[in-house]
């Protein structure tokens, strides 16, 4: 009984650890990739004993220390309790979603098969949508509790944007659910392991390409990244809904931004790119289509799978960062028009076509 | 096996929530908070349905909860639209002042 609890706690802590490490890398990439795109070098001055590590020390050591040591200001007429709670309300749902993201297949330890997923819910995808819905409160309460007109405007705009794109995100996911017949993310990842025509891994992108595009766009809009960052547009609303936040609370808001980037990357890899699947890698080793096989112990297989998952997450985090530093910002009405008149009908059409194809495939089989 | 909470405790908790919601509707003056108390009453009934569904082993209770949630969503949308329209005309959300339909 306690062993079960300890194993579950270890799995959750590991998935959180993975998420936060990739988030840290994401912050570093943000600095360096933006610098490369803009033909400059980026921050690289902070150094420990002369070791500056290309700016790693600056981004991952100096910046957090700076944020944590800054003075924590609460505006005069602001609502103290909600001003304190809003950053937490923004960060906690984003981190909690990582509990249902699978980071490996199974690990066999002492005759016991451990499913490498933090929480084995049979309504995993709905849990993801539920946490996305709860993320709205951090934005709207943070905007209101600052007692600042521009924060309130940024907060209302941000939450309106988030609830609009939540709908397109959910409907895109219905296409995925129709294809795999389950809401459990681990089962979806496992189902992408078999091979089409003997050698093509059956990843989700081959079955639901439109859902991938809709989900990626809606996910970027959910996390309020450029090109959808009007709620926090630096040139127009000062800092939008987190203008009046300083020090550790500001750090929490920024963290929740990057955690959501990593979350969208993790979900896209799990649903559309096989998650932890490495092509031709089964539970007992590699089985290549040309006949060769390589047997591997369970621990090695698990390590390869977790590494593959982490690399895929990093790739999609990098993609979102490049998108951020390349595209200009959407105007608010263009943003809402895209969400309601563009993505929503497209995702509905995707659901109908997917349902029709699933029905035909079942009739034909 | 640790002892599980008996069904009657869930029903009692649901009755308490319903009573709190009903008292809220009676004593508050702000129409939005009255509306929130109505949602609280609906949720108390949801708890009753889910507890009884499990006790009787039938999924019908959960299906009814699904419908209650849908109807509550529709009702919240229309009710808040009414409040917005009312506020635009009367500039108040105090239930004591919205008395035009009374004779």
């Amino acid at each position, binding site marked *: 009984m306690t062993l079960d609890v300890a194993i579950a706690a270890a799995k959750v802590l590991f998935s959180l650890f993975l998420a936060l490490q990739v988030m840290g890398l994401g912050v570093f990439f943000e600095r360096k990739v933006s610098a490369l795109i803009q033909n400059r070098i980026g921050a690289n001055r902070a150094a420990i004993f002369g070791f500056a590590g290309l700016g790693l020390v600056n981004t991952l050591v100096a910046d957090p220390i700076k944020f944590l040591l800054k003075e924590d200001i609460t505006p005069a007429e602001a609502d103290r309790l909600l001003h304190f709670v809003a950053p937490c309300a923004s960060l906690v749902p984003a981190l909690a979603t990582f509990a249902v993201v699978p980071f490996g297949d199974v690990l066999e330890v002492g005759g016991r098969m451990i499913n490498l997923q933090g929480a084995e819910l049979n309504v995993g995808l709905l849990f993801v949508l539920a946490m996305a819905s709860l993320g709205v*409160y951090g934005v709207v309460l943070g905007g209101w509790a600052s007692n600042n007109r521009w924060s309130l405007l940024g907060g209302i705009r941000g939450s309106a944007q988030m609830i609009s794109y939540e709908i397109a995100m959910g409907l895109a996911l219905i296409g995925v659910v129709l294809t795999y017949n389950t809401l459990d993310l681990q089962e979806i990842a496992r189902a992408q392991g078999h091979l089409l025509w003997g050698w093509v891994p059956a990843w989700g992108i081959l079955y639901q390409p439109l859902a991938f595009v809709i989900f990626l766009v809606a996910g970027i809009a959910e996390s309020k990244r450029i090109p959808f960052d009007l709620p926090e547009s630096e040139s127009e609303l000062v800092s939008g809904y987190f203008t009046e936040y300083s020090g550790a609370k500001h750090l929490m808001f920024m963290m929740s931004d990057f955690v959501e980037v990593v979350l969208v990357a993790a979900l896209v890899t799990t649903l559309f790119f096989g998650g932890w699947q490495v092509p031709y890698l089964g539970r007992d080793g590699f089985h290549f289509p040309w006949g060769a096989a390589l047997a591997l112990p369970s621990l090695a297989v698990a390590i390869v799978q977790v590494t593959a998952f982490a690399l895929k997450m990093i790739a999609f985090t990098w993609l979102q960062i490049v998108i951020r530093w390349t595209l200009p910002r959407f105007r608010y009405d263009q943003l809402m028009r895209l969400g309601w008149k563009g993505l929503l009908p497209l995702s509905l059409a995707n659901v109908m076509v997917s349902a029709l194809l699933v029905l035909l495939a079942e009739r034909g089989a | 096996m640790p002892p599980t909470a008996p069904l009657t405790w869930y029903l*009692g908790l649901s009755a308490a929530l319903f009573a709190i919601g009903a008292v809220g509707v009676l004593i508050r003056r702000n129409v939005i908070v009255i509306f929130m108390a109505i949602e609280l009453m609906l949720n108390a009934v949801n708890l009753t349905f889910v507890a009884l569904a499990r006790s009787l082993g039938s999924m019908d209770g959960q299906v009814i909860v699904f419908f209650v949630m849908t109807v509550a969503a529709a009702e919240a949308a229309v009710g808040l639209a009414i409040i917005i*329209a009312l506020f635009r005309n009367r500039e108040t959300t105090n239930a004591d002042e919205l008395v035009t339909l009374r004779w």
Partner: protein
Amino acid sequence: MSVPVFLVLAALLVAAALTVVTHPSPVYSACALVLTLFLLSVFFVGLDAQLVAALQVIVYAGAIVVLFLFVIMLLNLTQTEPHPTGGAPLVAVAVGGGVAVVTLVASALRRVTAPSTPGLPAGFGETAALARRLFTAYLLPFELTSVLLLVAIVGAVGLAKRRP
């Protein structure tokens, strides 16, 4: 759900519900309502109703209360009210009535013996089980609620539109 977990969560739930009903600021009432709905979702998980619990968070806590907060901020009703409740006699009678009802129900429940719980079928509370009941025995109400939602959307937009 085990007894100590139930008692702790029930105490939190009643405290949150009382905050909804008594706090003078509407924004705090809305936040307390979110907490109440989330705790109810936890109760649903403990009662083997996982799909309903997820829907409770998505629909109720994540959409309906956000709508409440939007209306509160749109109409700028965020000020703390100086006199949130009606007069003292009304409050006394209402609270007395509420306490009387709860006492009545509690005493009736004490005299009742709960039916013996049959073994739950496999997959109770999961999506497939709910869907099976929903699309067979409850198909007509399902279609009617979709029409109801359409009517509600059209009605809400029509009511809240600004007349030019």
